[in-house]
């Protein structure tokens, strides 16, 4: 980080030893005002990659939260208190539809990231809109399932099994809902500000978040729904 930052001209590093330190200070001062101009420090240890690592560590801690919920469900899923059991409640074709929604949305989120990489605003917004729609479809399907269960007197208050089921699946659903809100905000930002360095950094984090939620869902459909049907 000792050398002066330079404006990236196709990766060329313009380094002038004489006034590099002055230039570095001056450019750092300019930074907040010129968001669109990205500075690349040596080794690419810039703010964007630091933000990405920080966000990655948040995702890992979130993973531990889900591990706790998965462990709770694994322990409690046999405690049905005389109430309905997993095979009686869950319908695999319905869960498969939810799964496909989320998986395709993960793919289109990747395509949005690629479109951002080549600075195509229309394609980025288009793929984000597809991702958003599929995420919304997933949440809709899940909300419908929950409403159906609660109407059938199989709500979270029925048994330890259902308490842990609702906690685990709804926590995931809540994350997806937050992701949808974030995605809507990012679409507005892309329209209003374009691909500034901060917008790109945030979109990259959002993409990580969305893929991460799909990974958690793999655990949910395997442990809750597939294992449940195998009982």
């Amino acid at each position: 980080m000792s050398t002066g930052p330079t404006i990236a001209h196709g990766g060329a590093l313009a380094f002038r030893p004489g006034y590099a330190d002055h230039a570095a200070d001056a450019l750092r001062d300019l930074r907040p005002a010129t968001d669109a101009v990205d500075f690349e420090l040596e080794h690419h240890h810039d703010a964007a990659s630091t933000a990405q690592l920080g966000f990655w560590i948040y995702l890992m801690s979130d993973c531990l939260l889900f591990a706790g919920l998965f462990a709770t469900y694994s322990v409690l899923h046999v405690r049905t208190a005389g109430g309905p059991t997993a095979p009686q409640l869950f319908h695999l074709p319905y869960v498969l539809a939810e799964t496909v929604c989320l998986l395709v949305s993960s793919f289109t989120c990747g395509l949005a990231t690629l479109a951002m990489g080549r600075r195509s605003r229309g394609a980025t917004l288009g793929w984000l809109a597809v991702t958003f729609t599929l995420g919304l479809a997933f949440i809709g399907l899940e909300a419908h399932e929950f409403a159906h269960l609660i109407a059938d007197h199989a709500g979270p208050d029925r048994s330890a099994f259902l308490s842990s089921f609702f906690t685990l699946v709804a926590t995931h659903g809540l994350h997806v809902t937050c992701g949808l809100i974030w995605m809507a905000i990012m679409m507005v930002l892309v329209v209003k500000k374009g691909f500034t360095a901060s917008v790109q950094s945030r979109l990259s984090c959002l993409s990580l978040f969305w893929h991460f939620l799909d990974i958690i869902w793999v655990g949910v459909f395997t442990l809750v729904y597939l294992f449940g049907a195998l009982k």
Partner: protein
Amino acid sequence: MSVANEAMAGHGPHGAIHGVAPGRAHGGTHGSLKSYLVGFLLAIALTLVPFGLVMSHAPIGTPLIVAVFALAQISVHIVYFLHVNRSEEQRWNLTALVFTAIVVCIILGGSLWIMHNLYVNMMPGMMPGSVG
């Protein structure tokens, strides 16, 4: 899929517009269309097969086989969607991921082990089967 074809051609190493950061400044998390396509097709296959096994009540549709498919799919997601690899700039991401995986194994395995032990050591009748 004209948009997809653009994606294949695009994403050069350097920002085309003057003064805009090249894509590699963001930790190399963008990947390529090919990696997303391969990952997507693998993930779809690794989803449909276990669902098919369980729904058709196939004799090999055991919890172990289904769990193996889930672990395989999670690996596919991590490699092809999250683009975690062993490169220099991803070292800390990988370190955090491996550490998390170990802690997750301890939480899951440990909880099941402890609770199973508690259950089998309980006197019959002290813990009616219907109470959680």
